[in-house]
C-alpha cells in the first residue's frame, strides 16, 4: 500500500539574481513496509527531499501525496498534526531536549496529538524497551552516549506508531561500531513491518536498505 508519492516535484529557491534548483522533477513512491535509502553527496538535494517528505517544506511544482491526499490540501496545523501522529523523525544531531528526561523526550510527540492516547505512558515504555533504553528512562540526555541518545530519538519517533519513519543521517554523528548497531535496530524495526526512509551520503549505510534512490544535482539519478 502506498503511503507517500512524489509526482514531478520541483523545489527552487531564489538566490541572488538567479534561482537554485534544489530538486528537479522527482517522482517516486514509498510503500508500506519499505526500507528506502535516499543516497547522495552533500548538496545533492537530499535534505530538500527529506524536508518535503516530512511536510516541513512545500514543493514549488508538482505534487506530494500522503495517503493519496495532496500536501497542498492540508493547512499548516493539519500538517503539524500529521507529523505528530503519522510521521516519526530521527535526526543526525539527535535533537533531544536537554532539560527533559529520556522519558519526557520520548513522550513529546504524544503531547501534540489531537487526542492524546490514554495509554501514553505505556506506549513510551514500550518504545523505550524496543530500542533497549527502558532502564534509562529517568536519565537526562547529557548522561547518555551518542548511540544511546540516538536510540532515545528513535524511541521518540516510534512512540506515535507512525506510518513512516524519516531518518536524516541517523548514523552521521556516531562511530562505525555504534552506527552498525543503530542500523541493525532500523533493520529490526523494518522486519517488524515499519516503513523507514533513511537519508544518507554513505553508500555502505545505503547497502543495508532494501531499495536506494540516488540523488545527484537535484535529480533522481537512478533507483536500485
Amino acid at each position, binding site marked *: 500500500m502506498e503511503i507517500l508519492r512524489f509526482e514531478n516535484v520541483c523545489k527552487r529557491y531564489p538566490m541572488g539574481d538567479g534561482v537554485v534548483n534544489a530538486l528537479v522533477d522527482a517522482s517516486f513512491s514509498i510503500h508500506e513496509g519499505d526500507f528506502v535509502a535516499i543516497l547522495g553527496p552533500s548538496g545533492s538535494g537530499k535534505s530538500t527531499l527529506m524536508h518535503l517528505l*516530512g511536510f*516541513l517544506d512545500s514543493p514549488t511544482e508538482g505534487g506530494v501525496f500522503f495517503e493519496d491526499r495532496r500536501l497542498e490540501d492540508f493547512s499548516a*496545523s493539519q500538517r503539524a498534526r*500529521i507529523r505528530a501522529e503519522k510521521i516519526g523523525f530521527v535526526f543526525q544531531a539527535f*535533537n533531544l531536549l536537554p532539560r527533559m528526561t529520556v522519558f519526557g523526550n520520548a513522550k*513529546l510527540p504524544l503531547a*501534540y496529538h489531537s487526542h492524546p492516547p490514554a495509554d501514553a505512558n505505556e506506549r513510551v515504555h514500550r518504545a523505550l524497551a524496543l530500542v533497549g533504553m527502558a532502564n534509562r528512562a529517568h536519565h537526562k540526555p547529557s548522561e547518555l552516549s551518542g548511540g544511546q541518545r540516538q536510540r532515545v530519538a528513535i524511541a521518540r519517533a516510534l512512540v506515535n506508531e507512525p506510518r513512516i519513519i524519516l531518518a536524516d543521517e541517523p548514523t552521521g554523528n556516531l562511530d562505525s561500531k555504534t552506527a552498525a548497531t543503530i542500523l541493525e535496530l532500523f533493520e529490526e524495526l523494518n522486519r517488524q513491518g515499519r516503513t523507514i526512509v533513511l537519508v544518507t551520503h554513505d553508500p555502505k549505510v545505503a547497502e543495508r536498505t532494501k531499495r536506494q534512490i540516488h540523488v545527484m544535482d537535484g535529480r533522481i539519478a537512478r533507483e536500485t
Partner: protein
Amino acid sequence: MSFFSGILNGLGEIWAHKLRSFLTMLCVMLGVVSMVVITGFVEGMFTSWSKNLAERGGLEKISTGNTEPPARQEALASLSKGLTLGDALQLQRALPASFHISPEYELRTTLFRRGKRDWVRMQGVTSAIMAINRYEVAKGRFFTELELRDSANVIVLGTWVANRLFERNENPVGQFVDINGQPFKVVGVFKHYELLFREWNTLRWKNDVAFIPITTGIKKVGRNEKLAWVNVQVDDVEKLGETVDTITNVLATRHNGIFDFKVSTSEGELASFAESKRNSVFFAGIIGGVTLLVSAIGIANLMLASINERVREIGIRKAIGATGRNIFSQFVVEAVALSLCGGLMGMAVSVGAINGLQAILPPDNAPALSGSALVVGFAFSVVAGVLAGVYPALQASKLDPITALRYE
C-alpha cells in the same frame, strides 16, 4: 497539547532558568509593591484624617468664629461686640433642640498647685462640648448646669494637665488648683486619648485641656466677654446648609448687620481632601503603571532572549508535530506563570512592606493596606505579563522549523 501539561512545561522552563525567572518575577513584584504601597500611603493619610475629623465633631459640626469685618464695614465695627454668650443663647432658641450648641471661651492662663505651675490652654465651656468633641470623664464628673449657672469655681482637667500638676499616685478629683489667685476645685479628669502612640498621638490635643464653666471664665478669669467660637453640631448632615443660613441670619441680626463672624463647615475640608486624594491615587496609579510597564518590558525582553536560546527546541518541537498555536501557548503560559508568581510575591511583599512601614513610620504618614490596591496591582501585573508574553510567543510560533533545526 493539554492545558495542564502546558503549564507544567512552562513551570519546568521557569525552574530550569532560576536566575532569569527570578529577575523577571522581581520586576513584576516591584511593580505590584510600588502600586500597593503608594496607594496605601494615600489610603493611610485619608484614614487618619477622617478619624481626626470625627474626634473634632465630624462633618456635622459648624464652627463659627470671629473675623475682621469686611472693609466697607470697618467704620461700623464698634456696632458689634463680636461673638457673645447671648449669641449662643439666641442660637439655642432658633435651632432645633436636638442640635448641640457649644459656646467656647478661650483663656491662656497659668494653673498653680503647691509650687507647680502649668501654662495651659484653658477654655470656658458648657456641657455641649462633651457631645461635640466626644469627651468622656474618666474620674469624677463634669460640672453641672447648676455650677454653670452659679459661675462656680470648678475645673475639669485633661490627663496631661492633671499629670503635670499632680503626683502619679494622687487622685486630682476633690483637690484644688489656683487660677489668678482663686481656688478652683477639680471635679473631674478626662479619659486619656490615644489614636496612635507616643509623640504621634494625633489626639494629644484632647489630653492637654482644662475646662471651666463658661460663665466662670467670663466673669472671674477673663478680661472680656468675647467668645472664641460657637460650635453647632447638627443631627443630620443634610441640615448643614439651612443651619449655616440660620446661624448667619441670627448672628447678622444680633451683630447689627456687621459681618465680623465666619461660619464654616468641614465640607470644604472634606472636598479638598477628597480631591487631593483623587490626585494622589491618580499619580500613584501612574507611578505604579510605569513600574509595571518596566516590568512588562523586562518580561518581554527575557522571553525574547529565552526564545533565541531555544530556537532549536522550537524547531524540534515543530518537526515532531507542534503547531504554531502549541508553541504560542507554551510561551504565553510561561509568561503568565512568571507574572502570576511575581504578582503573588508582590502581594505578599506588599503586605509585609506595609506592616513594616506601619511599625517604623509615624502613623499619621503610615500606609494602610488597601484590598482594592492589592487586587488591582495583582491584576495589572498579570495583564502586563500576558501582554509582554504575547509578542515573543508570536515570534516563536512563526519560526520556520527547517531554519530552526539548522540553528546552532
